[in-house]
């Protein structure tokens, strides 16, 4: 499919400048400007190559525009914080993020999850603690004094949930420096890097999404197993700013749910590639909120 980039790459910078400018404006002025918009604006966090994301945004916003009968634009933020700020400032109406950033966005910007991604039939996934099958490590306590790689220090499945398994086992206190249990804690930069580090024997364990091992080669998959698994974590969600017009929000949700239909499913690859969407279950995020508070991420 030909990808059309609705926003040229330079737009990202313009947008960022605009954000900064708007942040410095009195709230009323910013709201007045935002309310003048007659379009729907989507803020995308660069979970993958920003250049790819810009191409994907062009495709999905064009499709949404046709579905909703109104202009739809998208832009790439520099990080999660920028996306939350954009929602708070009404510079964006919709964003896409994991459960932990979402509860923070909910707290700081009043944003609400409207949809959750579905993988293998579920709107949730788990985090696992992976080790090499030949390591002799069979339980969490075996990892005392060993090395561990997590995906990212602000990832729920790539850090907080697998780390919390040690707290639940009484091996660490929630919020305690994990270096007091492990000999070395590393952040590999992503699931793939973390699980690869275990497979290659560079670290003794890795904390990552339950699906991380499918990023390994087949022969490596056989060599890796897991010794701990978290409770279900709500999957990544689509969130809307809290004061987005109710009618528009409903139409947006209905449009996104149409991506589940066979003839539209190919479009899912342009929104981070889930298997589909379901309407968000807000109660499912309470546990995430509790964990975020326990680790001081949420006050």
């Amino acid at each position: 499919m030909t990808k059309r980039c609705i926003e040229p790459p330079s737009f990202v910078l313009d947008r960022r400048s605009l954000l900064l400018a708007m942040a410095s404006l009195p709230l009323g002025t910013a709201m007045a400007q935002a309310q003048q918009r007659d379009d729907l604006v989507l803020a995308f966090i660069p979970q993958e190559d920003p250049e790819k994301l810009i191409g994907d945004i062009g495709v999905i916003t064009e499709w949404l525009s046709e579905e909703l009968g109104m202009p739809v634009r998208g832009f790439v933020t520099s990080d999660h914080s920028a996306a939350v700020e954009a929602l708070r400032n009404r510079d964006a109406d919709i964003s896409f993020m994991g459960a932990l950033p979402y509860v923070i966005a909910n707290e700081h910007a009043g944003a609400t999850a409207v949809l959750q991604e579905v993988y293998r039939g579920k709107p949730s996934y788990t985090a696992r603690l992976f080790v090499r099958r030949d390591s002799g490590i069979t339980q969490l306590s075996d990892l005392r004094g060993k090395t561990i790689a997590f995906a990212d220090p602000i990832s729920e499945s790539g850090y907080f949930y697998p780390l919390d398994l040690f707290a639940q086992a009484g091996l660490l206190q929630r919020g305690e420096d994990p270096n007091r249990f492990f000999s070395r804690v590393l952040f590999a930069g992503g699931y793939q890097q973390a699980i690869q580090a275990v497979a290659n024997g560079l670290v003794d364990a890795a904390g990552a999404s339950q699906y991380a091992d499918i990023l390994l080669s087949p022969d490596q998959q056989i060599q890796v197993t897991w010794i701990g698994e978290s409770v279900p974590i709500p999957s990544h969600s689509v969130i809307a700013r809290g004061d987005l017009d109710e009618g528009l929000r409903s139409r947006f949700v209905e449009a996104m749910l149409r991506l589940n239909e066979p003839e539209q499913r190919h479009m899912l690859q342009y929104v981070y590639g889930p298997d589909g969407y379901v309407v968000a279950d807000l109660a499912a995020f309470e546990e995430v909120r509790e964990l975020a508070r326990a680790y001081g991420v949420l006050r």
Partner: protein
Amino acid sequence: MLGRFLAFFVAAFVFVTPAFPTVVTEEPWHPAAAAYRTMMFMADLVPAPWDEIRKAYEEPHPAAAIQRPARAFFDTLPDDAGAAIAGAIETEDRQRLYEASTRALSRLARNALAEAAASLSEPGQANRKALEAQAYYRAFGSFIEQSDPEAGRRLGLAWLELMSAIGTSGIMGTNTVAAREEDFQYARAEIDTYLTANFEPDAFAERQKLTPLPETIIAARGEVPLAVWLPPGSDLSDQDPLPRLVLNFEEKGIDETDLPLVAFGDMLFDSPNIFGEPARSLGLTCSTCHNRSDINQRFVIPGLSHQPGAVDVRGSFFNPMFNDHRRDSLDIPSLRGLRFTGPYGRDGRFASLRDFTRNVIVSEFAGPEPTDFQLDALIAYMLEFDFLPNSRMDRTGRLTAGASESELRGEALFRKPFPQMDGQSCASCHVPSAAFLDRKAHNIGSRGQGYDGALDGYLDTPTLLGAKYTAPYFHDGSLPTLASVVDWFDTRFELGLDEQERADLTAYLNAVGSADEPYEDFGEPNTQFRLAWEELTTFASTFDALARSRDAANAILMLETVALDLALDATGMLNSSARSQVFELVEILNGMLAAVRADDWVGAETLWASFKEMKEDYDKAMY
């Protein structure tokens, strides 16, 4: 093997072990790294496909996350590094291509690391640049790990330290972690120094093969052999949706475990161990290309496949001895109804299915000479392949009641003789009562001449049964739809069909090429793994017969195939909590393997008895 479904993005991991019946998701490649590996792979083919190499460099790479071609990245380097690569391609100079592109890719990786270092005050930006550097390094990484394991480990740790040292800006001011610049620079220096010494040396040694190897290793040990690898974008995974397999005995209610010869042939059809290298190490089996007796529209190896669903099996890659130097990538044919479709081969070159099968094993895929028993088993299994039932058509090939007006008009047209076709009709060759074929080769002008005056364009008439699901069409897969096939004949033979007639003929082809259930229907608990589990345990059941005849060679072949496939398939289980039970069974199979190798048949049979018992116990959890 069914479980080979999704699997195997060779490109992602490069080095492979036999059989890949597992779920693997490939991390997208950086265009420069993808093109680099592709160019090195292709330049080692004989003859090298320089037109494809040029495309890999100058056009968007299918395995890359972004559409910008590799050249756009190499052109950002100073000293005309990008032009040097283009020049090497232009002059078809392999050594120059290796040197220019290796040096340039290393430089890109080091530059990205330098940019990451310069932006440590912005963790987000530093992280992105470091990931970009890793994406370039990935093109070298697995080759370093294999040829220089000590350095591979040291560099792997350096990357971990480097990523950890970047820190994070947290979310909304929480959980911020400051960068540790000294640690970052230390790790960066480790990587930078190795790349410079090994991929940007003052001078490169002359290469026989272009697999990227560290220059210090070349200097010390020469071109060390590495495991076989394929370029990014290669896909050996099964087609999705998976074709439905129709076995004659199964439809009659006969259990495959009561047909040990057939079951053993089924196992051989799914075993890479009947082939030689490199097919064996790649896990290629008969079923890799012929999923469930049909085709695999997904199969592709850049340089060997001119498009997905096609491959040149007579080139230098699989068996240099059999290299015909023709670059003749052919569309993979279906094997459904095989006992009715002889002669075999696209041009009908083999009258005997046995000769054809031996040719595939020995000549095309460099395998050892199969024994008579192995050929008997393979043939016994393949002769069970039936066509897909199609209630749109009766047993003589006539459309059944309920056919549309258009389809009926199409049927009449199909049977209508045309003077432009020497008074023949479509049905003259695609005989409806004979499975829509005539078992003859014809030259209809669909194949170009091999040389001036050549009379070499004869191709075997293909069946139209199940054709709705076997696109693209013709020996080279040049026609994407049945409608385009109709258009081709209309043009080629100047039939003068109007739009309605072409639509009618297409509707008819769709009807006779249709099927009641063309694909496997999966769901919980009828998962892909469940199907694999049932197949593999059926294969294992042949142990009884093999043990009775003390056939160690075939017992070992079977046990090796089943044990590895079962372990690999387990990685794709929906019920992942039962994976450890599968590994228990794999251990038993490995124990049997060791016993048979030690000629301890009693020990092997004892283990086999426990396997059967545990299989029953675990059966319900196997999905």
